[in-house]
């Protein structure tokens, strides 16, 4: 089975770009939690931001596998840059491409492809999960647009994006079915605070305040949950590819370290305990790789990929932690020092799959299906 289709062709070019442009800034940007604004244009120039946008609106729409390949290759050098890009091309551009009307697509997509506008995504709310129906961000219909009020947190590309896809309540009585999606311009919202994180530190996350912010409805009223679920599932697949990218680098560096680190008169790669740790890392990376790209293939085939994305997420959350843990352990004290890349990989891996609510746990969804 060939999981990668034509994507191998673009993989090389992405890998080269990643190494040349993203790797040199990764260390300092992680330390300073600096958003690497300058790379947005550079990635756009490489046509990476058109991967989910049709030609009509300036894009070079490709299969989803290519998006996963991009996520993986960017992540090999810079996990934050990969998540910034995925937020842009999936959560914002893809959502507008798929659910926007022609006017909206014309207004936003060409600028998003060219990197003039960066996309962000506002879903999570402080205190409780939106999926539990406890959300407090509401959208009220006015002439021609909606006015959105409330607070979102951990907004992806928050504070830096020029355009946000926002999930808000249009009909509180209907609960989840009353959720709708909106396009909101960056200057309509206020970034109340940046959220400093364990890892993925140059991927900007912020708390955003909406105060009668103007929003354009994306799709129809009540489409919010459907759109949010789709964004979530596609992002999970892409995040798994990011985990594969970081994981491969962590494994590569662990192999190198184990072959050069001499203790007891021989390289520690001769120790069975170290070999086992390497093998277990490889097992998890290989499985994650298979899960990510077979899910991407389902997306491309137009088949239902929700189940795949959920199983993948359940596996990935544990696997990414274990890959990182082993990589640090093989490196010993060196792996704990910020001088080595390993500790950054470990922190970045830890952030790819966080569930803000019991409702988002893949177990809940799988069990729900089993017990239907």
């Amino acid at each position, binding site marked *: 089975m060939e999981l990668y289709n034509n994507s191998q062709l673009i993989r090389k070019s992405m890998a080269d770009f990643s190494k040349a442009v993203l790797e040199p800034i990764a260390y300092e940007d992680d330390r300073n939690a600096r958003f690497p604004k300058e790379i947005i244009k550079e990635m756009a120039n490489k046509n990476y931001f058109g991967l989910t946008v049709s030609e009509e609106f300036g894009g070079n729409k490709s299969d989803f596998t290519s998006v996963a390949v991009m996520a993986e290759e960017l992540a090999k050098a810079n996990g934050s840059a990969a998540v910034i890009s995925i937020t842009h091309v999936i959560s914002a551009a893809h959502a507008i491409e798929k659910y926007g009307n022609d006017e909206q697509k014309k207004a936003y997509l060409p600028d998003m492809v060219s990197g003039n506008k960066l996309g962000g995504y506002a879903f*999570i709310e402080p*205190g*409780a*999960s939106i999926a*539990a*129906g*406890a959300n407090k961000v509401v959208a009220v219909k006015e002439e021609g647009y909606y006015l959105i009020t409330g607070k979102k*947190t*951990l907004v992806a590309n928050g504070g830096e994006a020029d355009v946000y896809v926002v999930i808000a309540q249009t009909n509180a009585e209907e609960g989840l079915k009353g959720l709708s999606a909106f396009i909101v311009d960056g200057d309509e919202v206020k970034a109340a605070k940046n*959220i*400093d*994180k*364990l*890892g993925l530190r140059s991927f900007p*996350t912020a708390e955003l305040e909406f105060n009668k912010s103007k929003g354009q409805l994306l799709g129809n009223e009540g489409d919010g949950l459907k759109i949010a679920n789709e964004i979530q599932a596609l992002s999970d697949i892409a995040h798994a590819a990011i985990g594969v990218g970081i994981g491969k680098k962590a494994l590569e560096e662990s192999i190198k370290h184990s072959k050069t680190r*001499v*203790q*007891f*008169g021989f390289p520690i790669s001769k*120790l069975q*305990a*170290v070999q086992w740790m390497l093998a277990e890392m490889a097992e998890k990376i290989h499985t994650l790789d298979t899960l990510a790209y077979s899910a991407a293939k389902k997306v491309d085939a137009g088949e239902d990929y929700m189940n795949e994305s959920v199983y993948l997420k359940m596996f990935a*959350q544990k696997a990414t*932690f274990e890959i990182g*843990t082993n990589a*640090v*352990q093989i490196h*010993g*004290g060196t*792996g*704990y*020092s*910020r*001088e080595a890349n390993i*500790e950054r990989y*470990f*922190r970045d891996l*830890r*952030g790819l799959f*966080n*569930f*803000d*609510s*019991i*409702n988002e*746990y893949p*177990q*809940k969804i799988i069990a729900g299906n089993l017990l239907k």
Partner: protein
Amino acid sequence: MFDFTDSQLELQQRVRKFVNENIFPNLELIDKGEYQEELFKEWCKTGLVTLVAPKAVGGIELDTKSCAIVMEELGYGDVGVATGFGANNLGSYPLLISGTLEQQKQHFGPILEGKYGAFALTEPGAGSDAGAVATTAERKGDEYILNGTKCFITQGGFAIDMQSSMVVFASTDRTLGSKGLSAFLVKGGTPGIRVGKIEDKMGIRGSQTVELVIEDLHVPASSLLGEEGDGMKIAMKTLDSGRLMVAAQGVGCGQRALDLAVDYVKKQVEGVKPLAKQQAIAFKIAEMEASVEAARQLVYRGAFLKDNKQPYSHHSAITKLFATEMAMNVANSAMEIMGSYGYSKESGIEKVWRDARILSIYEGTNQVQRLVISGGLLR
């Protein structure tokens, strides 16, 4: 075995008070690596600057159980701070094992005045393989001359700046391998030993970790602890004791992670359902508490064995292995329960998670513990 005496309870309260008043309000600064000297000054006021100095030299000579209580409480506050303060115990065990009264006075004198000691064994080429120490000590007349490089030395820079006392391991005969290893008492500030690189670490940023560059360091022959070639034995016995203390920190760290998760879960309501009523969360909390408690029992049993002069080396390896992996896993579970908030710095668990990761690496990686444990069973 597990009952605390009144004085142990008082000790526990004293450290808790210190943690609440001096560590918790300053966690952000501590995590930046700042505030270390001020905090240490406050710590000295508790009378616990070193826990292990013999009464003969003016110390409080706590039993192992009391030491474990202190380290558990400090680990609850901040593992970095516990590691830093702990240097005055780790660096002092060699004196208890092989020091003469004169050497003990020399070592504990500055420490009891409120200074940091240090324990310098690890080298770039000698981590898990302690026998591979390449630092040499050459006898010349009534002196030894030391040359080499040490790394990952806790509070090493403070010990030098404060002109305090540290124990440095060097080989007096490299042809003998680990049997040629010897331990020396070195006064901080002596020409020939200086700080090289200062490590920038993922966690335990409330302690200082440095490289020590040793170039033609002259120490009097009377600085030798025990005999030439006693170094390996001294180092291993020191680490046997140290492991129980690392495990005690792990228990504190795990307890802290558990408490943060419990606080979060109790406050969080999903829709109309409190998170605490979600079985998936509640059971995870139960597993976390079970493993914290199991590790705690291992620590206090280890302390009991040592205080009662029973063999405890095998047990301390088991304890270090279990308690440190527990701390890492419990911290990770706590972060998972707290979701994206847990991944943010303001959650508090983020720092605990970074701190917890060191415990299975330092003072003998957990792979070394597995070697010790399996070696005991399979010989």
